């Protein structure tokens, strides 16, 4: 049994540069977020709270940045790319730039190799998993995440965050994290698994849009598209292809450099699975 493992596994060496381990992937769940459509309305963030049992920490702890939002909307005032185009005005005439930030589900995730107990690892469907009940809370993963997308349960929030009967809203499909555990966006793995099980139960392939992540489902401007990057027929893979963004590249070589697709901190070679499409502004 396990000797088999030894022999088999020893025979495997790293294939190419980080390809997310030796897994034979079933899926590679990915996203495409159109910043031209995103209005930064926070609906996705709240939907995430509702779906994933996120704790509400309250103002005192929020003040210390002990926060819990897997999906956060970053707001910036400047436009580095258009700096010349915008005349410096004493008014914010170019509006704000909104960036929905959720776990990038990197294929070469920097958080994975550093976890001492292997509580975070890569699943066969290309997700960057966090196993709560294995986590010992060394917080190394978060410290090694350039996107700062991992959040730590500084306290036990169960009583403080869900006083009865608020706890009745908690989603039984996934665990409520206790104190001392790291957590992060899971691409709504409970929905993924529910859909996959359903498909499996009636022996068919899992179709595109058969399920949606909570953020995608609620996004009023449909800025978020989620799907399987391994299946070229899904809308998300079409988007990636259309914007000439590919996995496994530290730098995209595009025939048409004007195409808007890009990945945040691509050059760090973490190979994130979320593609953003540049914000557009009339100048």
């Amino acid at each position, binding site marked *: 049994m396990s000797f088999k493992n030894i022999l088999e596994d020893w025979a495997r060496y790293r294939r190419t540069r980080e390809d997310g381990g030796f897994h034979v992937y079933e899926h590679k769940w990915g996203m495409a977020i159109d910043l031209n459509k995103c209005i930064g309305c926070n609906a996705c963030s709240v939907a995430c709270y509702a779906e994933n049992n996120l704790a509400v920490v309250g103002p005192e702890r929020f003040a210390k940045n002990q926060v819990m939002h897997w999906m956060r909307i970053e707001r910036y005032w400047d436009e580095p790319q258009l700096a010349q185009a915008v005349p410096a005005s004493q008014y914010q005439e170019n509006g704000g730039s909104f960036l929905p930030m959720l776990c990038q589900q990197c294929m070469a995730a920097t958080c994975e190799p550093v976890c001492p107990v292997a509580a975070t690892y890569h699943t066969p469907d290309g997700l960057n998993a966090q196993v709560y009940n294995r986590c010992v809370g060394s917080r190394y993963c978060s410290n090694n995440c350039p996107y700062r997308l991992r959040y730590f349960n500084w306290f036990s929030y169960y009583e403080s965050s869900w006083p009865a009967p608020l706890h009745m809203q908690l989603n039984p499909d996934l665990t409520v994290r206790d*104190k001392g555990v790291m957590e992060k966006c899971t691409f709504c793995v409970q929905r993924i698994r529910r859909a996959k099980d359903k498909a499996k139960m009636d022996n068919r392939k899992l179709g595109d849009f058969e399920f949606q992540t909570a953020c995608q489902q609620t996004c009023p401007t449909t800025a978020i598209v989620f799907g399987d990057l391994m299946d070229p027929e899904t809308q998300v893979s079409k988007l990636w292809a259309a914007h000439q963004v590919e996995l496994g590249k530290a730098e995209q070589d595009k025939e048409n450099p004007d195409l808007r697709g890009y990945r945040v901190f691509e050059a760090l070679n973490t190979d994130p699975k979320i593609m953003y499409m540049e914000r557009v502004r009339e100048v």
Partner: protein
Amino acid sequence: MQTKDINEQIKWAQINNDVLRSLENPRMAYWVAVGICVAMIACAVIGVGYVYTTGQGTLDLYWPDMWGTWIGTFIFWIGMSHSGTLLSAILHIVHADWRKPIYRFAEAMTTFSLMTAGLFPIIHLGRMWNLYWVIPYASDRGIWPNFRSPLVWDAFAIFTYLTSSALFLYIGMVPDLAICRDNARGWRKKLYTVLSLGWAGTDRQWRNFRKTYLLMACFLIPLAVSVHSIVSSDFAMSIMPGWHVTTFPPYFVAGALYSGCAAIITLFIILRYFFRFEEYMTIPILEKTCKLTFVIAMAWTYLNAIEFATVWYGPDQVDKELLINKFTGPYSPYFWAMLFFGSVMPFTLAFEKLRRHIPTMFVVSLFLNVGMWLERWMIVSPTLSLSYEPFAWKVVWPSIVQWAVVFGSFGWFGLLFLVFVKVFPSVSMYEVKEMVYHRRRAVVDDNAKALHRRSSDPQPAAEMPGA
């Protein structure tokens, strides 16, 4: 002005007496010191208990700086532990005789600071009761620790280092324990009889002892280097700006030796003062230690400069930003303080007058260690709170609980050391005897040459050992 490392006229009996006396009837000052240490430990214990019950949040750790001062202090203590290795192992191999009177307590420091350091990674865990998951044990779940994680390397390295250095300390002590055994009474007699492993000073024992000691020393040197390199890889292996630095291993090792030597000077002075070890911990030896410290300090400064330079001329914008941030940002006061204590302070060691002025040295050595602690903190926190993601930039001052535990760790170290100096000889008697013996031989030979006599001829009675 004293120039000799040690006075060769000193009687061996006196050596025994002086050292053994240091083990006897502690004075008031000792008990006061113990009391203070215990109080400090109490602070830490209360703090940790509070964290354990409420959660790590009470440390005012936050997103994104999730490590704070505890990990910094962890590195600090690890670094402290390199002193013993340096003095006993390296200097032993290069036959630097002057180490002999002072290496014993240095090694003790090594062991105890390791015992202190080891605590921090444990208590900083969010769920410390699951610590054992880091140990590679066979479970029916088929789950192992992730051997890729530098934290696991830490666990291995620290365990190895603790074991080895403790054994090194102990083995080096055996002949002295025999001496204690022969002079002790009551429970001490029993204790030393057991500990001295039946040492009788036969040539066979001495022979194997020499070999063993040498081999252990040989193991300890690369081990010490590897340990701090591994600790540095906690950071160097990551991709965060300010951590992802190739010079980190040597930088850490240098820093470690640095703080170690500084700590040696401190304890040197304390022991010399309280145990009246003027005969053995002599000014020239202090001077030598200071010179060594100075050299290391300069090495450390150089490595610092290298790091700045590589960042400054390197391609990584974010890294550069962070560096600028360290110099000008919210952490700048501490950063400048670190540079001052670490690179400017040591120049006091370059002046003979100051080197020989004990109070100055005491103060300086303390400041050097403050600088070293700041260095460690400046490695951990700025990177975490000001890194790639601007939206996450945030600086929160560590809470009182954090400080209490850091503070208490010194008490823990102090207590261990205090116990040590009263139970074990903090000066190696047999090595000092050797030192004296060889010097005496040297002197005798000189006289012999002068007087055209064989050195094996009977010497004037005055020079008879033990006469």
